[in-house]
């Protein structure tokens, strides 16, 4: 096979490279273009569509394109956020794959000068009746905990969804949020000819070579699910990263670096060329100066290795001694591996030399590695059977089914997962994992804090919706994340997205991607949510089938005055239960009930009215913000519990509230699957001691609301007539808490064969 093809480049791409260089590239240059022009690094199939996302907002300090987005949180403090995927590595080596995903996203955050304060880990896996799914789930959760706990960043949430489309290709997305004083914001830019490029952190080894091209930008073949791609998975060292965080934050705090960039996908090639290109400068890198983990590595390996826990800092020669001293104090390796150079004829050159003053092994325009990457407008086509799928309504399946049994089958407490994660470090966690949104005080070591502001974070995204109607489904994901944040009193402020899709060479997948991006754009505009960063993960497919299109979004919101915890998803004895939003039967198409309980994937989604949704978000934010701003011990508020309706609809929403609080309820509602399990958006349940006040406020906000029942007693009763269903709280709580733990109890450690 021709070398460029082995490196993942097409014949046309190889010709482009020759045109850029006006000569044939040598092997090292080809290897560098191979990783930089990979789908993972260049977004060559998605860039053309991503441009349609709204990115502007008064409070946006840094938008997409840098290592992380940054928004102003007031009082001189800013919030940095980013989300990424580590799907393919986790499919092959779940512990290391998930762990290195956590490490990578944390580096993106502290690169900006921010102290990482929160991780969110949205996971998508195959059902746990499959041994391999249990092995993957166990390894992924251990990897996230093993890294996050030791590196000292609390994991505050992230949902877990089980669906057979992810069985051989789990999704492991990870979002990180950090805080920084405005004054510490640093960009990944090289400036000042003669400034030095200092490589900090781990030595460079052969792990992860070709991670972005071989692993992340191609589908798995049948034989590769096992182990043959394992050498392309990197190995994680949270202790190295912990010291790197402390050392880098100290360097940034003291103003000792002019630019800094982490080494992630495409390793040193990417970090060095991108910092040079962003600053309009050139850079010389000396292979001999890179500390190596093993002997015999050739320059192409050194330049493309994805060894973890490494940073590249641009430092003026005057500051070098201080930089080296700080690194040494934290036991962090530091080596000068290059120098910033003047552009030649306006073009910054990225040159690789064997040693300082030695021979030139590669010489390319720095910006060509990123800016000249190919841009594809791939063919898009709606699936042929779409009309048929949309017409295939699951409603009739309900006839022979029991509401109570179906409800119990869907209840699952996620604490088995998050009790393995440190979710309390920094002692700012007001609401931890397992709720609508996580809430932390806006505070961190080394960041000035008013001590009064809070930050709410939620991740959401529902593949089964998007499989049928990607545009509406993606918009509903944004809507849900915003409403989750509102349920804690937060005002949604910014969004990051992680687009997990199948093979972009399939026109149906490109159609899904394009539609989903339109849906995201539409929802973000309606809710005034700027997109400040994102990640695209393509080629998620195995056994020949693409995964359901799964755009995952992370939304952060600010809580102006956080004096007491939000009410949470609970019921309180004697309180009225109010349903905000549509109070009717609706389509069960792509609902959790249809897909998970009945195995039926057709039908239509309930509609989404974004204007109405914006009013609900505004109303809920205001209502809960008033609750959380009240000081401890002040007169009790009127909202004793609140939970948004999402997966499993109204029935699952109230069942979760009952199971969590041990308080029952009687709801005067129709006892039909179409009413109880539909997933129409823009709805919340509010448990309140003063229903008149809540209804009055809803009316004033232009929001539909009605009292549908009363909390109290020891059973959950749905419907007050003959056809009513009653479930004892004990049964709810039992199903709720046993669901995950019991299924994983049968887990055995060795990787299952076959």
């Amino acid at each position, binding site marked *: 096979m021709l070398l460029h093809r082995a490196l993942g480049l097409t014949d046309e791409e190889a010709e482009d490279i020759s045109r850029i260089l006006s000569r044939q590239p040598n092997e090292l240059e080809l290897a560098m273009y191979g990783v930089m022009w990979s789908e993972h690094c260049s977004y060559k199939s998605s860039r053309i569509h991503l441009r349609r996302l709204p990115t502007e907002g008064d409070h946006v300090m840094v938008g997409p394109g840098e290592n992380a987005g940054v928004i102003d949180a007031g009082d001189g403090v800013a919030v940095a956020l980013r989300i990424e995927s580590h799907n393919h590595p986790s499919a092959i080596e779940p512990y290391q794959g998930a762990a290195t995903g956590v490490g990578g996203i944390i580096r993106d955050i502290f690169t900006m000068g921010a102290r990482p304060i929160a991780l969110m880990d949205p996971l998508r896996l195959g059902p746990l009746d499959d041994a391999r799914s249990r092995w993957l789930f166990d390894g992924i959760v*251990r990897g996230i*905990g*093993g890294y996050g*706990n*030791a*590196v*000292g960043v609390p994991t505050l949430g992230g949902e877990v969804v089980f669906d057979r489309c992810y069985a051989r290709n789990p999704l492991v997305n990870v979002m990180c949020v950090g805080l920084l004083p405005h004054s510490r914001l640093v960009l990944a830019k090289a400036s000042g000819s003669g400034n030095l490029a200092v490589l900090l952190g781990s030595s460079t080894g052969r792990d992860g070579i070709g991670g972005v091209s071989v692993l992340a930008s191609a589908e798995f073949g049948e034989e590769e699910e096992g182990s043959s791609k394992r050498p392309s998975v990197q190995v994680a*060292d*949270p*202790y190295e990263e*912990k*010291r790197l965080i*402390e050392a880098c934050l100290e360097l940034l705090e003291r103003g000792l670096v002019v630019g800094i960039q982490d080494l992630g996908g495409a390793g040193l090639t990417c970090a060095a060329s991108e910092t040079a290109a962003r600053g309009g400068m050139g850079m010389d890198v000396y292979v001999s100066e890179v500390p190596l983990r093993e002997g015999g590595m050739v320059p192409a390996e050194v330049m493309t290795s994805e060894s973890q826990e490494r940073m590249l800092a641009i430092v003026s020669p005057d500051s070098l001694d201080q930089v080296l001293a700080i690194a040494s104090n*934290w*036991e962090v390796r530091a080596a000068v591996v290059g120098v910033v150079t003047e552009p030649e004829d306006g073009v910054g050159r990225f040159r690789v030399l064997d040693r300082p003053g030695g021979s030139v092994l590669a010489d390319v325009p720095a910006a060509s590695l990123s800016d000249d990457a190919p841009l594809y407008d791939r063919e898009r086509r709606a699936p042929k059977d779409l009309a048929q799928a949309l017409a295939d309504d699951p409603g009739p399946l309900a006839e022979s089914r029991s509401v109570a049994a179906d409800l119990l089958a869907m209840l699952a407490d996620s*604490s088995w997962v*998050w*009790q*393995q*994660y*440190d*979710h*309390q*470090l*920094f*002692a*700012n*966690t*007001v609401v931890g994992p397992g709720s609508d949104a996580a809430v932390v*005080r806006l505070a961190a*070591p080394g960041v000035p804090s008013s001590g009064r502001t809070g930050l709410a974070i939620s991740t959401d995204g529902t593949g089964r919706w998007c499989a049928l109607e990607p545009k509406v489904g993606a918009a509903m994901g944004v809507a849900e994340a915003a409403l989750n944040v509102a349920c804690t009193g937060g005002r949604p402020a910014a969004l990051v997205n992680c687009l997990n899709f199948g093979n972009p060479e399939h026109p149906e997948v490109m159609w899904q991607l394009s539609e989903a991006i339109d849906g995201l754009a539409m929802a973000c505009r309606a809710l005034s949510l700027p997109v400040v960063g994102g990640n695209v993960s393509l080629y998620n497919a195995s056994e020949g089938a693409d995964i359901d299109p799964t755009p995952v979004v992370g939304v952060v919101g600010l809580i102006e005055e*956080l*004096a*007491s*915890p939000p009410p949470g998803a609970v019921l309180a004895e004697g309180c009225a239960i109010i349903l905000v939003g549509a109070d009717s039967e609706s389509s069960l198409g792509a609902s959790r009930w249809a897909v998970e309980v009945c195995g039926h994937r057709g039908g239509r989604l309930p509609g989404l009215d974004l204007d109405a949704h914006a009013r609900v978000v505004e109303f809920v934010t205001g209502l809960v913000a008033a609750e959380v701003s009240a000081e*401890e011990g002040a007169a009790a508020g009127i909202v004793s519990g609140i939970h948004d309706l999402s997966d499993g609809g109204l029935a699952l929403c109230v069942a979760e509230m009952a199971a969590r609080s041990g308080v029952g309820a009687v709801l005067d509602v129709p006892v039909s699957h179409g009413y109880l399990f539909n997933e129409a958006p823009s709805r919340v349940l509010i448990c309140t001691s003063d229903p008149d006040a809540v209804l009055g406020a809803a009316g004033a906000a232009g929001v539909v609301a009605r009292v549908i029942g009363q909390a109290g007693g020891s059973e959950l009763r749905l419907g007050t007539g003959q056809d009513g269903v009653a479930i004892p709280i004990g049964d709810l709580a039992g199903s709720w808490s046993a669901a995950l733990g019991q299924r994983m109890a049968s887990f055995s450690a060795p990787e299952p064969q076959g």
Partner: protein
Amino acid sequence: MTLRAGVVVFPGSNCEHDVVSALGSLGAEARLVWHKEGDLSGLDLVVLPGGFAHGDYLRPGAIARFSPVVGELAAFVGRGGAVLGICNGFQVLTEAGLLPGALQKNIGLRFVCRDVELRVESTSNILTSALEEGERVRIPVNHFEGCYTADADDLRRLEGEGRVVLRYLDNPNGSANDIAGISDATGRIVGLMPHPERAMSKLVGGGDGRRLLSSLLGALAAA
């Protein structure tokens, strides 16, 4: 008189800032102490905080015990100082031989982070003197290696001498005799797995950690 506390930072520690701010909120003057420092003069209290000192390489605390600051602790206590080891700090104290026994992997072989109910077993030590014997407190744990283990003689001695400080009511890790915290013979060195600094207010973690740390500072002020 303002109490002076030093909170030790090993590479890999991560709860040091939380302890400093918890003690600060109770009126103590708390500062970070780098693990290579050997001079503890002027301090009333040294806290070894939670985290993963030296990455927990080999086993938790096994490398940290060789840090200069740990070598000074026995003399510091001899001069009337007090030492509190929280979580990883407790592991360091057992590795250094300042407290008996060892902390092994949790019996479920999984990391566990959640609130636990504890009973105050003894009040003749620096941490719990202001609480009542038999009183219950709710504090979070956060560890993989929290299963307290000691030989039969040590356990008998700890129980007989009233050196079991806190006991789990719902043992999360398989600890012998449900032990969550112990003291040395003088009562001036205490190690515990739960994190009182994570339970300092109704807003975050509940207030029982504040009661423990207030008790600690009260005992030191009275001495």
